[in-house]
């Protein structure tokens, strides 16, 4: 057999590793800042681009797509080459992939801070960046499949399947969810509206967790855990079963983010059922990871890398147990919209993704630099500080979430709500402070790692091209009996198609009916499109990230109806491109805020929230009083909405600005009566118009379902 010599590309691995560390620190700093802003409104600094609503997407996007994203690529570039016994397919593609991804991150940070957002959580990036992501993802795909095709090992190790499934699913999710209609070079409206937009978004949102934060990291775990422990994975069979089960089940679970909302009931139940089933493959993966260390627990005691990995896998187990529990309607009724969700995601992000990444970094860096880790002791210190950080983060947030929910739902003996919304916020501020402390500890641990890694790098020299040799792959001559799984393992393209079919089936079955069958969305005759001024106001609402603290979805519970008004109906959202239901109530729900307070209240509240609600933690939005509404773009916005099916009269785009000014002048005149002077075309006027419109359409009207045939 001909033995071939080749070189592993460690330079790309190094670059991705550095990017992982850099963006990790940036993302965590942003997280720390917004956690402080929650109890210290002054930390918003009164500037648009430092205010919570704009920094929060920077935090989530940086941690998910920059920190974990680069972590995935680091893990894939290191492991795939060695598993395939081949260098990465093409060095130029590796370079384009790396720099392209960093360009995406930088442009994401800049545009998000500047207020360019689609208003869909975890998919906030605007259309040009969406296109760039697609292109770079394709580059990554070509590089990965190219490597797989020219491999020198016919069997595809389980980690590679996870990478393949990740690539396909993320591509599909990203494209489907990013359907948007641009009306300017940095702004667009979501193609979908209301309920449909919500279903697509959470189908994406949930699967972003599944196929960006979970499957690639499981693949990486199946490589680096056995490597770090130097023993084979506990059960290879379990890894095969758990892989197929996981990718098949995960794609159906999205609707569990929308329980008790205006989403059709059957879709909610489907989401719940599949979420419960998910516990089996998830725990299959966790147990397979932990059992790999059977008989090697003495190593865990000494090796910080294994310590990180054990806690990571345990956190994965906890988060994937909690996930199905939170999908139960009765549990979800309590936890949804509270900080419980925040605790849940951070057990996953800080524990599973963060700790696995740190373990891998400590393992990879000395190897590619041909040296020893500078200090094992510092790594162990990092481990303990980080672990305490996670505990200090998670427990107060669970506690806060639970208290929040119970206080929201508390009635007095007389049958009135016991607590004002604001009381439920100020009550949990001590927990918010502890959370920041936990985050600060976690970040300090990361800084210790940065020092340790810099020292390690300095003590060695990069082996940019690591020599290796392996026999060339002999084409299978057709054995007497070929098993299907072996067959598919040797054919990545067929496997790609097969995975895509499985994954697409789930998505299509859930979404197509909602699109096609009108009976899912009862039409309400009194629901009318937004006026041009309200539309402009809505876009300001999205720009400032209001949806990150305020929901627009009143669930059919006694307390919510008593607090916010009539529960939300699916038909109310048909002109909402994008939907703005939100996922967390740090502030009260706004679905029926319209008409609740006078214009002057909103004016003063946006200028200085504490003047209207003493103790409020909302930042002030002073720039809305100086900025002018961008009326030049109004016609384009109206035309875009018309294209999306919003029934504005033909030619309305030309009258839109006159209509806008007429409404604005009216609001301005009303404010003037109350001695509040502001320009009629100030952004605050548009925002007030939008806030006063919200939820008013169906006051006194009844939902009219289309007759069933």
């Amino acid at each position, binding site marked *: 057999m001909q033995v071939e010599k080749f070189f592993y590309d460690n330079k790309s691995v190094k670059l991705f590793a550095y990017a992982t560390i850099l963006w990790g620190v940036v993302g965590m700093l942003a997280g720390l800042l917004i956690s402080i802003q929650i109890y210290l409104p002054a930390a918003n600094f009164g500037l648009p681009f430092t205010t919570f609503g704009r920094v929060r997407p920077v935090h989530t996007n940086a941690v998910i797509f920059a920190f974990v994203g680069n972590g995935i690529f680091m893990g894939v570039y290191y492991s795939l080459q060695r598993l395939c016994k081949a260098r990465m397919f093409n060095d130029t593609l590796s370079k384009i992939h790396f720099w392209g991804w960093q360009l995406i991150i930088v442009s994401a940070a800049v545009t998000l801070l500047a207020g360019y957002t689609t208003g869909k959580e975890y998919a906030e990036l605007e259309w040009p960046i969406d296109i760039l992501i697609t292109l770079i993802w394709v580059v990554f795909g070509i590089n990965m499949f190219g490597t797989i095709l020219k491999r020198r090992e016919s069997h595809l190790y389980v980690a590679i399947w996870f990478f393949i499934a990740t690539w396909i699913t993320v591509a599909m999710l990203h494209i489907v969810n990013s359907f948007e209609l641009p009306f300017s070079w940095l702004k667009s409206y979501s193609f979908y509206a209301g309920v449909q937009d919500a279903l697509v978004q959470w189908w994406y949102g949930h699967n972003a967790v599944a196929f960006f934060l979970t499957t690639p990291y499981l693949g990486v775990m199946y490589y680096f855990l056995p*490597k770090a422990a*130097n023993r084979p994975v506990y059960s*290879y069979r379990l890894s095969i079963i758990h892989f197929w089960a996981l990718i098949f089940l995960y794609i159906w679970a999205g609707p569990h983010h929308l329980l008790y909302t205006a989403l059709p009931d059957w879709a909610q139940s*489907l989401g719940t059922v599949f979420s419960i089933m998910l516990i089996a493959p998830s725990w299959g993966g966790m147990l397979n990871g932990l059992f790999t260390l059977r008989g090697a627990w003495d190593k865990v005691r000494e090796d910080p890398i294994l310590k990180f990995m054990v806690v990571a896998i345990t956190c994965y187990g906890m988060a994937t147990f909690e996930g199905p529990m939170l999908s139960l309607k009765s549990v979800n009724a309590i936890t949804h919209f509270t900080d419980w969700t925040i605790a849940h995601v951070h057990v996953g992000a800080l524990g599973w993704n963060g700790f696995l990444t740190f373990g891998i970094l400590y393992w990879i860096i000395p190897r590619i630099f041909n040296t020893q880790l500078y200090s094992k002791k510092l790594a162990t210190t990092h481990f303990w500080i980080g672990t305490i950080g996670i505990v200090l983060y998670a427990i107060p947030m669970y506690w806060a979430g639970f208290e929040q929910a119970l206080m929201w739902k508390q009635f007095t003996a007389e049958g009135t709500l016991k607590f004002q919304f604001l009381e439920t916020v100020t009550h949990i501020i001590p927990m918010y402070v502890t959370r920041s402390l936990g985050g600060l500890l976690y970040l300090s641990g990361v800084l210790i790692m940065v020092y340790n890694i810099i020292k390690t790098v300095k003590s060695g020299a990069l082996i940019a091209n690591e020599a290796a040799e*392996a026999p060339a792959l002999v084409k299978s001559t057709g054995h007497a009996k070929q098993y*299907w799984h072996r067959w598919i393992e040797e054919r990545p393209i067929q496997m790609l198609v097969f995975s895509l079919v499985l994954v697409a*089936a789930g998505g299509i*079955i859930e979404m*197509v009916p909602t699109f096609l*069958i009108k009976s899912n969305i009862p039409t309400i005759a009194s629901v009318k499109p937004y006026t041009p001024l309200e539309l402009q106001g809505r876009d300001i609402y999205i720009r400032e990230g209001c949806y990150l603290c305020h929901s627009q979805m009143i669930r059919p519970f006694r307390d919510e109806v008593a607090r916010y008004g009539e529960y939300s109906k699916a038909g109310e959202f048909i002109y909402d491109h994008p939907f703005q239901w939100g996922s967390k109530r740090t502030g009260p729900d706004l679905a029926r805020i319209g008409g609740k307070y006078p214009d002057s209240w909103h004016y003063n509240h946006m200028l200085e929230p504490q003047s209207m609600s003493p103790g409020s933690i909302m930042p002030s939005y002073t720039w809305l009083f100086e900025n002018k509404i961008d009326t030049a773009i109004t016609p384009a916005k109206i035309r875009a909405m018309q294209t999306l099916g919003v029934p504005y009269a033909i030619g309305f785009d030309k009258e839109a600005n006159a209509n806008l000014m007429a409404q604005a002048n009216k609001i301005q005149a009303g404010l003037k009566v109350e001695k509040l002077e502001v320009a009629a075309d100030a952004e605050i006027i548009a925002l007030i118009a939008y806030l006063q419109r919200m939820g008013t359409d169906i006051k006194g009207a009844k939902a009219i379902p289309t007759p069933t045939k």
Partner: protein
Amino acid sequence: MSVILILLMASISVAALFLAAFLWSVRSGQYDDEISPPLRMLHDNSISQNIDTTNTTTTLKPIN
């Protein structure tokens, strides 16, 4: 009610396909070799480490 029909038909056909594939894989002895793949990945084939690449199942010395 057409929604539920579409849903049921699609779900059942996908589930049936998956079940068939699984039964077939078990019957055809697909999972016979579960030993060598997890052991093979422990070796990097790097020249400097002098690992015997042809006989992977017997060399289990630490590679650090």
